[in-house]
C-alpha cells in the first residue's frame, strides 16, 4: 500500500516537473509584461502535435521532436509578440483577455480542423521501456520528461538571475522606460521573453507527447494547470513555479489515486480558487 503510494508520488513529481517547465513560461511573461496568456495551454498542445508530426512523418522520437518543437514554438512566440501582444499590452484589459483568448481558439481549432478531434498517441516504445529502480517501476519516457524539464527549469532560473540577458530582462520588467534610457530595448527583451516562454511550452509539449493523450482540447486543461501553478508559486517567480509545479503534480496524482481519476482535475481547480481567494500573491511571491 505505502509502496504504491511512493510510486504515485514519484509519478506525480515527474509530471509536476513538466508542469513547472511550461508554467515558468507563463510566469515569465506575466511577471515581465503583466499580461496573461490565455493561449498558454494551447502552446503546449502545439508542442505535442509537433512531436506527433515528427513521429508520423519521420519516425523520429523526442531527440528530433523536442528541439524542433522548441524552434517552432519560439518562432510562434516572437510572431505573436510582434503581431498581437505588443499592441494589446497598452490597450484596455478586455482587449488583452480577448486577444489571447482569440489566439487560443484560433490555435485549438486550427489543429482540430487539420488533425480531427480524435485522441492521438505515440507508441510507448519510442523512448526505451520501463526501468525498475529500487523496486519502483519507472517508464523511461516519463523519467526523461521529468528530468529534462527539471534541468531546463533550473537553467531558466539561472538564465534570469545569473546572466546579463537575464538582468536586462528583469530591468525591463521593473521599469521599461528606465531600461530604455540605459540602452536596453524593451521590445527586443520582451520578444526574447516570449520566445523563451513559448519555447518552454514547446519543449514541455514534446516531452509529454510520449505518454499523454494528444487531443486539440488538451490545452484547456493544461492552461488551467499553468494558472494554478503560477498563482500558487507567485506571479513572476520561476523558483515558485518549480515548487508549485512539483506540488501540483503530486497532489493531482495522489487525488487521482485516492479519490478517483475523474476528480483529480476538480481538486486542482478548487485548490486554485482557494489560492486566488486567500493568497493571491502565491506561496513565494510578493504583492
Amino acid at each position, binding site marked *: 500500500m505505502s509502496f504504491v503510494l511512493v510510486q504515485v508520488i514519484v509519478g506525480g513529481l515527474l509530471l509536476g516537473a513538466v508542469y513547472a517547465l511550461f508554467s515558468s513560461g507563463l510566469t515569465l511573461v506575466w511577471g515581465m509584461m503583466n499580461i496573461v496568456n490565455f493561449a498558454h495551454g494551447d502552446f503546449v498542445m502545439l508542442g505535442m502535435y509537433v512531436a506527433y508530426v515528427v513521429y508520423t512523418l519521420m519516425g523520429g522520437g523526442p531527440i528530433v521532436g523536442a528541439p524542433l518543437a522548441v524552434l517552432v514554438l519560439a518562432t510562434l512566440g516572437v510572431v505573436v509578440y510582434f503581431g498581437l501582444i505588443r499592441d494589446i499590452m497598452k490597450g*484596455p484589459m478586455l482587449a488583452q483577455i480577448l486577444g489571447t483568448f*482569440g489566439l487560443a481558439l484560433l490555435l*485549438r*481549432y*486550427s489543429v482540430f*480542423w487539420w488533425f480531427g478531434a480524435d485522441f492521438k498517441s505515440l507508441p510507448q516504445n519510442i523512448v526505451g521501456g520501463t526501468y525498475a529502480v529500487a523496486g519502483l517501476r519507472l517508464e523511461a519516457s516519463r523519467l526523461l520528461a521529468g528530468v529534462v524539464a527539471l534541468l531546463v527549469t533550473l537553467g531558466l532560473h539561472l538564465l534570469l538571475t545569473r546572466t546579463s540577458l537575464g538582468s536586462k530582462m528583469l530591468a525591463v520588467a521593473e521599469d521599461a522606460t528606465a531600461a530604455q534610457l540605459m540602452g536596453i530595448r524593451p521590445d527586443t527583451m520582451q520578444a526574447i521573453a516570449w520566445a523563451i516562454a513559448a519555447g518552454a511550452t514547446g519543449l514541455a509539449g514534446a516531452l509529454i507527447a510520449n505518454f499523454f493523450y494528444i487531443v486539440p482540447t488538451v490545452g484547456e486543461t493544461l492552461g*488551467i494547470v499553468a494558472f494554478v501553478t503560477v498563482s500558487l508559486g507567485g506571479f513572476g517567480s520561476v523558483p515558485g513555479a518549480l515548487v508549485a509545479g512539483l506540488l501540483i503534480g503530486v497532489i493531482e496524482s495522489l487525488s487521482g489515486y485516492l479519490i478517483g481519476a475523474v476528480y483529480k*482535475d476538480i481538486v486542482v481547480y478548487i485548490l486554485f*480558487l482557494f489560492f486566488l481567494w486567500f493568497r493571491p500573491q502565491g506561496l513565494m511571491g510578493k504583492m
Partner: protein
Amino acid sequence: MRRLLWLSVLAAVAIAYPLLLSSPFQQRLGALVLLYAIAASAWNIVGGYAGQVSVGHVVFFGCGAYAAMGAYAKFELSPLFGIPGGIVIAVVLAAVIGVPTLRLSGHYFSMATIAVAETMRLIVTNTDYLGAAVGLSGPTVARNIFDLSFISSLPYYYLFLLVLAITLVITWWMANSRMGFYLRAIKDSERAARSLGAPARRTKLYAFMLSAALTSVAGALYAMMFGFVDPESGLGILISVKILIMAALGGAGLLFGPLVGAAILVPLEEISNSVLGGKGAGLTFVVYGAIIVLIARFQPGGILSLFKRRSKPASEAGAPHAP
C-alpha cells in the same frame, strides 16, 4: 428624437423578420440570434458596464438550462416552472462566487471564473442525479402549450424577442440609474470611485447577480428550444466564450452591442456549419478566433464604437472611452 426613430425601425424589422424571411432555416436563425443576444446582453451588464470580464457565465446559463429541464425530468412540471428556480440558484451562486472573486482585479477575476465554470462542469458530469454526461431531456411531445415545445421556430422567435426587449430595458434602466453611474466610475478607476464614496464591491456584486439572473433565463430558453441539456451544451466553456465574444464584437458596454455581435456571429456559425457540415465545426471556431484577435488588436471597443465615434461631434471625442 432620432434615437427613437432608429429604435422603432429596429423594432419593426425585428417583428417583421420571421414573416418576411419565413423559411424554417431563417426563422431558426432569427431565434438563435435573439437567444444569444439575450445571453450576451446579460453578460454585458457585468462584462461591459462593470468591466469585470467573466469567462464563467456559462455557469449561470447552465443553472437555467438544468432548472428548466429538471422541472420536467424530475417533477413532471412545465420547463417554465424551472425558470424562477434557475434564477434563484443563479443569483445565489453569483453571490457565492462573486463575494470572493470580485475582490480580484482584472485577469485574476477572469481566471477564477474559468476555474469555477470548469469545476461545475466536472461536478455535473459526475452527478448521476443531473443525468451525468448524458444530461436531462425536456418533453418530447408537448402535453400542453405551457411545455413550450414547438416544432416551428416562430413561437420561440417572438418569445425570445420579448425577453430580449425586457433584458435591454433592464440594462438601459440600470445604465441610467445610480448603479450605472457607479459602475462606469468603477470601470474607469475602481480606486478613484471608492475614494469618492461609490460602494464598489457591493455595486459590482449587484451587477454580477443581475447579470447571472438574466443569463439563467437565456439558459432556460435555450434548453426549451433544443429540448435537452448536457454538460457540454449547458456548461461548456465555449458557451461562455461565445457570449463574451458576441458582446465584445458588437461593443461591450453599449446597449445594442451584444445584439449586433450576435447578429454577425450566429449566422456566420450556422451558415458555415450547414455549408461545411461536420468538418465546419472546427473551421467556424478558427474564424471566431481570428475575428476576436483582429477585434482585440484593431478595434477593442467593438464594431458599434466605430460607428459611434463617427456619429459623435468632435466636442465629445474625449468622453467615451473604449472599455
